[in-house]
């Protein structure tokens, strides 16, 4: 691949602010951000005996600009996949290519942001020092670094706590500073390991909004989670893993589509109309499953209450609000 591609070219890998490295893989397809082939990871003991097969022959493709979810119960291989993609683990067999580079090549990290499951950060640093430190690791000049640090602190809403040591932070604040460090280099690809874990519903919503916003900015996001609702809310495509095997992969909407059923949603329909609708269904040979008022999700209810409380402090939420 040409190394002097124009900045407007989407296949170009050069980013001025961080002085990133040039793409070296001639087979690099800029629309395929992550590609794994037969990726397998077997954990062994000291004597080389197999302990567990954490990932089995995973074939995966993540495309540019999408939110890709890795879904599965604990121990299904989600985190192992992320670690293999980051080069934190070496594959037993198969290969993983990230942004056109071998996953073990450090150079690829120039264009990657990573939020680990527990936001493993240095607790003795404050938010500014943390982001400044990670900015230095991207070889960012001091001026660029200062601006970027302030911008990110504001973006994740830690302006008032930026001088406090991370050991004093709550779980939510730690996740936020963790996300900020993952974004310090304005990455093309963001890998999020359980991004909503430990967050309250409000924090979860903010995190999901942030993920969607990043996608809208053209970034590719890979997240792994076992919280199905989160994945459903934000992911464009998902891969479902179980005991190291890929069980299902595709677009969320098409995977969730129940082809044998039809859903009708209407507002201000009187109770008498329900009987009529049932009758029509029977006339067409259909089986009536349910004609009733839908319920909202608990998340929606909770967020509604919080928003209402913020708007009218001290007042109990009006029951009418719940139906919205």
């Amino acid at each position, binding site marked *: 691949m040409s190394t002097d591609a124009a900045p407007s070219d989407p296949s170009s890998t050069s980013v001025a602010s961080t002085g990133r490295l040039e793409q070296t893989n001639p087979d690099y397809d800029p629309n395929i951000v992550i590609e794994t082939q037969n990726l397998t990871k077997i954990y062994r003991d000291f004597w080389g005996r197999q302990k567990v097969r954490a990932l089995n022959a995973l074939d995966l493709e993540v495309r540019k600009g999408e939110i890709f979810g890795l879904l599965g119960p604990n121990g299904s291989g989600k985190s192992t996949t992320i670690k293999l993609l980051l080069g*934190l683990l070496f594959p037993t067999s198969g290969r993983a290519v990230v942004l056109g580079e071998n996953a073990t*090549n*450090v150079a690829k990290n*120039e264009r990657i942001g*990573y939020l680990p499951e527990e936001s*493993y*950060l240095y607790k003795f640093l404050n938010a500014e020092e943390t982001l400044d430190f990670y900015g230095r690791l991207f*070889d960012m000049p001091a001026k660029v670094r200062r601006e970027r640090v302030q911008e990110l602190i504001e973006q994740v809403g830690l302006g008032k706590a930026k001088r406090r040591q991370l050991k004093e932070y709550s779980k939510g604040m730690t996740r936020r500073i963790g996300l900020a460090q993952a974004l310090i280099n304005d990455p093309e690809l963001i890998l999020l390991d359980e991004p909503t874990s430990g967050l309250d519903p409000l924090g979860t919503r903010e995190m999901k909004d942030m993920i969607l916003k990043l996608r809208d900015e053209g970034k590719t996001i890979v997240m792994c989670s076992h919280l199905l609702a989160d994945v459903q809310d934000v992911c464009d495509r998902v891969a479902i893993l179980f005991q190291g095997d890929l069980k299902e992969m595709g677009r969320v909407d098409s995977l969730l589509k129940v082809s044998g059923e039809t859903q009708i949603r209407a507002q201000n329909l009187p109770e008498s109309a329900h009987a009529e609708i049932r009758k029509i269904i029977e006339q067409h040979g259909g089986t009536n499953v349910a004609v009733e008022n839908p319920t909202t999700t608990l998340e929606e209810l909770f967020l509604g209450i919080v928003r209402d409380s913020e708007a009218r402090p001290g007042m109990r939420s009006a029951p009418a609000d719940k139906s919205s």
Partner: protein
Amino acid sequence: MVREEFPHFLEWFGPGILLFLGVLVVGTILGLFVGYLVSAFRHGPFEAFYVVSQVLAEAVPDFFRTSPRRVMAMAGLAVKEAMRRRVVLVTFVIFALAILFGGWFMDNGSEKPEQIYINFVLWGTQMLVLLMGLLISAFSLPEDIKNKTIYTVVTKPVRSTEIVLGRILGFGFLGTVLLMLMGLISFFFIWRNLDHQHMIEGPTQTVAEFVNVDANTKKSTISGKRVSANAIAEAVTTENNGHSHRLEIFEDIRDAEAEPPKTDDIVETINGDDGKVTYHRARCMPVGGHTHQVTVSGTGSSATITLGPAIGYFRARQPIYCESLMFYDRTGAKSEKGTNIGKEWGRRGFVDGGSQGVRSTLSKAEFSFTNFEPSRFPKANFAPLEVNLGVYRSTKGNIEERVTGGLQFESVPENPDVDNRYISEVVEFETAEYTVQTLPVPKKLVGRIVAPDGSLVEEGEYDLFSDFAGSNGKLNLSLSCRDVNQYLGCARSDVYFRGKDQSFWWNFFKGYVGIWCQMMIIIAMGVALSTFLSTPLVMLGVIAIMIVGFNTSFIQNLAKVDAQGNLLNEYGGGPISSFVRILTQQNVMQDLETGVFNTLIEKADYLAINSMMLLTYLAPDFGQLNFSNYLVYGFAVDDQQMLIAVAVTLAFLLGLVLCGYFCLKTREIAK
């Protein structure tokens, strides 16, 4: 202080760099081989080849893309992390406590109190700093891996070199600051504890306190010992810092035309009728290697005497050693090691004093000096020669007399076939064993000029520098034994001219450079080992290497073998055969019974001995990096040796960074 090596940096550098490259190449090949084996075990032989070549292919760009900003970021983090662990603080507190209360246990009245103080601070600093270096380096990376904080670092474009180098530099910086602080405090500690003043014992601080010396016996009424030959009165000072001094008023008789002494110690000036002037001067007699400056104000018995601060504690003697030493036996034939006098014949070579039958002996030790120039000496009118000789008496002789030695100076012409030689008369001196004698060699020496054919050209008095050392600055000094049946022993370090002293504090700093070198190697070793070992194993490993490093010469001596592979220095064979002898209670002088068992033991010993030898090459020789003895004995640290120490340290740092890089790069961080 015994010096056996006189290295020159430039001469050392060539073979040194070859050895370094050799170790590097062997280490790399060995590392690749082990890496291939491990990889082949995991992935199969073909895939392993690919993995190893990939690591190698990525290593080169990794080194070239090492970013100073990232290294500094890692270093800054290492500093903050180490400060948070409070190891540095605890080290400093221990040091401060030792300094605060250490003075209680020091004997200021001992013979050389400065040696005790310097030894104490240097040893204490060395141990504390090395321990601190070990602790902060051993905990850092394993803790980062355990806490998984390293995940957020290695997922950035950070090379393993930067992680390793950053940590070494960060901890090194912290250690350097601590070392500087400790050095500064030590300086004040030594200075404050040794600095003292005395008063004259008695109600007045005047000459009236002095009592006359018995002119016949010349014995002190204070100490009962002989006083100086020209002493006329004496007094004693108050006891301070565990000692008191004897003061003397002595006569300094000079010609009336001669320049008077340019000192403030003149008590009285008496103009004689014989054209001579007698100056009565006061002096403070040295105790424990130091004295005090005497200042006299007024004249006669009412003259007030004031003693200044201590002089002589803080020295950095600059010895000018010869370039080569050659012995000649009694027939005049060259001999590398001098006359063999039996068991004592070791470090020193011996010069034969001849026998009753053959009184004339040509046996001598010839010291060849180069760059013998007056600018290297403190005073232009003489060159102080310091000798520390061993005496071997084959007969008791006159027990009240010391063995006499002879010194003879000789020029070394560039072209001996054409140029004349200056040869001095033999200057005799009484030898003193077990101590360093100072023999001031006057600038003017009586001697002769000899033509290349051996004929006498001229006799007279010639200049040591301009005639003997001549234009080429070369001078030969021959030491002979003037007593029959006696032998004088000397090594290269036993006879030297004493040049201008170096500043003590500069020398003190150089002593700390040695500790700094040791600290940096320990830190680098701790960081390199922590890339693949857990904290306890790192500490164990580094301590093991330290033990080998501090005892390199001992281990090398133990493992020294002859051409046939037999141990040279120890009886009873190698470690395993010695152990077998202990178990079976066999005599160390007897060979073990021949047989399969013995052969097995011998082979195992051979392996063990060679492993020990290999260890001494891999572990740094801390003795080479330790300049404490120079400071303790008041010698200037050899600049050449210091340069070598710094080069050795850099070589170890480079090697350990490489080792750390490959270990970290090939390690699965998240496993």
